[in-house]
């Protein structure tokens, strides 16, 4: 999607604001949201669907929301779409807690212990797959990032589309997010680290000697 989440190279957001001695969470509800996302990832949706659900937020709402507010919007949507909860019961329940601000989740239901796999065994390693076909590109190959504008989920940022780069290494084979986010299967393919010179990306606005490396799936790339 050509959407607001694809922020690379945009102007107008001002200086980076930092918080001294920042706490891990700013409010107790944030930790609950993090846990409910992990539980969803283990039981109801994959990480690509989750990222795409964030991308499907209204662009203005995306920018107005904090990180965990975006997570909440995404998991509400996915738990409903996956049929774990209905939109109606969520709305009714939300209204109840708005009318009873002192009530806790456990006032309405006594949670039962759940089996251990309430979070993915190892979310970090879930996306590597065994290679199927040999990689099409090798280090040193010149490539062009395709100029494509899919309406669905993609991990090819706009700022690199149509730009020329050089393959630096092949990272192995990974699940393809563009299909995995849409129930179209994992369709694993090689991922490459591709170096794009700053002048290639930004022309005369490049702020000096440098480059950006992106990790790109094979089908994002054409030989140059």
């Amino acid at each position: 999607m050509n959407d607001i989440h694809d922020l690379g190279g945009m102007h107008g957001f001002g200086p980076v604001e930092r918080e001294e001695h920042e706490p891990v969470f700013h409010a107790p509800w944030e930790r609950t949201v993090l846990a409910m996302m992990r539980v969803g990832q283990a039981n109801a949706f994959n990480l690509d669907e989750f990222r795409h659900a964030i991308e499907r937020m209204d662009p203005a709402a995306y920018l107005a929301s904090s990180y965990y507010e975006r997570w909440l919007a995404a998991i509400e949507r996915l738990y409903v779409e996956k049929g774990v909860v209905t939109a109606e019961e969520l709305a009714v329940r939300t209204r109840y807690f708005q009318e009873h601000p002192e009530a806790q989740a456990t006032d309405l239901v006594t949670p039962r212990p759940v089996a251990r796999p309430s979070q993915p065994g190892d979310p970090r390693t879930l996306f590597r797959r065994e290679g199927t076909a040999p990689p099409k590109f090798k280090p040193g190959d010149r490539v062009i990032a395709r100029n494509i504008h899919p309406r669905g989920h993609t991990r090819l940022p706009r700022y690199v589309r149509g730009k020329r780069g050089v393959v630096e290494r092949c990272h192995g084979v990974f699940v393809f997010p563009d299909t995995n986010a849409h129930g179209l299967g994992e369709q694993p393919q090689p991922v490459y680290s591709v170096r794009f010179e700053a002048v290639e990306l930004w022309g005369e606005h490049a702020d000096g000697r440098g480059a950006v490396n992106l990790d790109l799936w094979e089908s994002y790339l054409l030989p140059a």
Partner: protein
Amino acid sequence: MGKNHPNVEPYIVSRVRALESLLMEKGLLGPDTVDRIVSRYENDTGPLIGARAVARAWVDPDYKRLLLTDSQAALAVFGLTNYDVLVVVENTPRVHNLVVCTLCSCYPWPVLGLPPTWYKSPAYRSRAVLEPRALLREFGLEIPPEREVRVWDSSAELRYMVLPMRPPGSEGMTEEELLPHITRDALVGVAEVRLPSSIAAGRPA
């Protein structure tokens, strides 16, 4: 966040409680699920695994080679096993590295903990690739024109950590002495490791 829009918070809290109670009802959330998932990020206040790896790399050339070429094996030394997606990029007098995720906020949680809010902000995500030098200047880091700035946009499932340069004045310091000076910011690439002048001055240059 309450600070930005104070009237939103109660509504958010109701939505979170609603989903939480429904997931409990459906048997997906147990009495201790939230604490079990989240506690390790809240309670793990010791030095980051990433910092431990850097301190070791500074004193042990073989370990440094391992960290740069087989990070999974290098991290296993500090008890982090099966983490097979970390790429460690080395700062040198010729190259400064900076890590970002422009599309969301990908970050190497197991080695650096949860990301700070600034890392997830539109300002950082938009500018790190376009004007890294201007950005770094705001963080107090002036990169000379002849030194290349390499930005790593975490656009896939690989995760990045910077191996900073060992600070001047640290010659002869042990791994344990170096460790407290290795900050998260240096491992993301928005800072360099610097010794307080009291320490650096007390040592032969």
